[in-house]
């Protein structure tokens, strides 16, 4: 038999497929991971033009998948030990959990009033659905739904965004806004080589604060070459090599999503809770800090410093807010005692909980928080 002859004469030939298969796979995965070549280069733009493009983007209807990964230096637990989904989508534990590790979320938007963010956990999901003035939070882990009605004064889009955030997961556009608003005359803004995000060509806007008063070293924002929507944000801490926080679209479709996506009725058997209506909108820029998330900070916010050195704090001590922060086992371990209170230090954000229960947060070194706390007393 022919095959037998070959087997006896050149047995090594029979191992060729086994040697070739990994090579082919390695080559294919390498080819897939290479950035798509600039087949159709974007017209050159100055940093100011790219900023203008980003500021003027009018994309209000899209659906896509956002991946967020954060390596802020918070203690990391093995995946098995992590709770698969904290009870309430807006709780402190939930925010902390979302701000560590990797998360994937699907985002649907249609106009100002329709939005849905699905944070996809393993075998669980956390949803935030906004339809008109109704906002629903749903957690599949414990089958709970929370409902809030947006009051009229939150109807305007800039403020309602605060409530749309998936309790810690935001679209790259929302995150980018946080940094674009901090650009001041001392900030170095440049445009790097074009990048490709979610299959779309984008300008790579590089922002570098030129002050020692912030922890942020560099922010890279990919601005869609066609419509100006920020497609990815990478934040690198001062002196660090790798980004500590990345939020980017992995897929994006600019078609309006099906209207049924925004319809939400609490499923039968679920626990439904009505959330109190906030009297006043939250503080503008620091609303993502854990303290403000809790709603205890309303009417109580002090903002010191400007731009990158902004420190947001609470004026009056709120023992309940501080207590609930420190009750979280992860937080109470991570927060170290410093003069004047306890400090939760991460690569990009510092949070100071003073002994009298006030909370100060900012992307600034810890000393600035302490001096802000001392000054506000």
């Amino acid at each position, binding site marked *: 038999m022919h*095959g037998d002859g070959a087997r006896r004469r050149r047995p090594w030939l029979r191992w060729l497929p*086994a040697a070739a298969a990994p090579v082919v796979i390695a080559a294919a995965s390498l080819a897939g991971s290479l950035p798509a070549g600039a087949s159709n280069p974007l017209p050159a733009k100055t940093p100011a033009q790219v900023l203008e493009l980003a500021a003027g983007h009018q994309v209000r209807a899209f659906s896509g998948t956002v991946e967020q990964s954060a390596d802020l230096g918070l203690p990391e637990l093995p995946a098995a030990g992590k709770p*698969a989904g904290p009870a309430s989508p807006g709780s402190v534990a939930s925010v902390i959990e979302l701000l560590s590790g990797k998360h994937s979320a699907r985002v649907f938007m249609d106009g100002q009033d329709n939005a849905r963010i699905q944070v996809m956990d*393993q*075998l*669980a*999901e956390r*949803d935030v659905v906004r339809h008109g003035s109704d906002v629903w939070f749903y957690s599949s882990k414990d089958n709970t739904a929370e409902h809030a009605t947006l009051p009229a004064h939150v109807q305007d889009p800039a403020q309602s965004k605060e409530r749309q955030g998936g309790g810690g997961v935001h679209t790259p556009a929302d995150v980018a806004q946080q940094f674009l608003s901090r650009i001041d005359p001392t900030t170095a803004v440049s445009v790097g080589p074009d990048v490709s995000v979610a299959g779309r060509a984008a300008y790579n806007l590089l922002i570098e604060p030129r002050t020692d008063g912030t922890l942020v070293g560099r922010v890279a924002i990919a601005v869609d070459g066609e419509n100006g929507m920020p497609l990815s944000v990478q934040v690198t801490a001062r002196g660090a090599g790798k980004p500590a926080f990345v939020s980017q679209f992995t897929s994006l479709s600019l078609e309006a999503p099906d209207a049924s996506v925004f319809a939400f009725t609490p499923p*039968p058997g679920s626990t439904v809770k009505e959330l109190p209506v906030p009297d006043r909108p939250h503080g503008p820029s620091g609303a993502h800090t854990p303290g403000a998330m809790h709603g205890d900070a309303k009417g109580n916010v002090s903002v010191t410093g400007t731009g990158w050195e902004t420190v947001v704090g609470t004026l009056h001590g709120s023992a309940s807010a501080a207590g609930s922060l420190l009750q979280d086992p992860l937080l109470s371990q991570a927060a170290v005692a410093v003069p004047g209170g306890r400090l939760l230090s991460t690569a990009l954000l510092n949070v100071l909980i003073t002994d009298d229960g006030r909370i100060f947060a900012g992307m600034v070194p810890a000393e600035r928080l302490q001096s802000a706390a001392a000054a506000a007393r």
Partner: protein
Amino acid sequence: MPSSVPADIPEAAGTARQAAAPRRSGVSLLGSELKVLFGRRRTWALLLALAAIPVLTAIAVRVSSAVPPGRGPAFLDRITQNGLFVAFTAMLVSVPLFMPLAVGVVAGDTIAGEANLGTLRYLLVAPAGRVRLLLVKYAGALAFCIVAPLTVGLAGAAIGAALFPIGPVTLLSGGVVQPQEAALRILLIAAYLAVSLAGLSAIGLFLSTMTVVPVGTMAATVVVSVVSQVLDQLPQLEWLHPWLFSHYWLGFGDMLRQPMVWDSFGSNALLQAGYVSVFGALAYGRFVTKDILS
């Protein structure tokens, strides 16, 4: 060792007799392989053991007090409201160990079992070709990968319908689907798991060509699956995770979202195809060059 039980020998010898017939097509060889595989008491014992998982789960939930929400494996707390969740819970529970165990037994036995019984050389007497035998053996293992999750899912749906009310099913996204569509999703999850186990079967097939001791291969296959899952839990090895064949095993939750997500299904299929090609090629290299002594 089950494979040396005398009851198995006539069946295996039957394969050998058929193999000796000249010019059989690959299809009839596959037919006889499937007949032998699913005619075995051991295969039925494995499937019965898998079917016992949903049955025991359902009975335990039935006789015990209500499970508080958010406790235990996902979906467990929903069973009392809707019997179809027995199928989801059982499939989830069986993924880490029981499915790989059953697949490891079947895939590990493919070549080593015949060699151990001394029937392998008879299978190769005829110009059947070692490649064709290897393909047929792998196809048999794949057939078991399809049947095993189906057994768990269908047994779960059946026992759930018997012990609990059946109604519209709440998906992970909070949407609700009718029982018919939920049944379709059970079948989709079974398909997802069948694809998930294809890579492990290829590993078992390769290990099976290495030795004539089937128990060793079975154990090694199961150990490989456990090691892969342990590595997948270590954050320090994050770069390795997308390359582990067990990485997407629990991703079948994506079949329970609204709108459905196909990303993990696609990535999983691609990953498993990679494992099948690598370990299939290794099994080929080993099997066509080795001296068959038994």
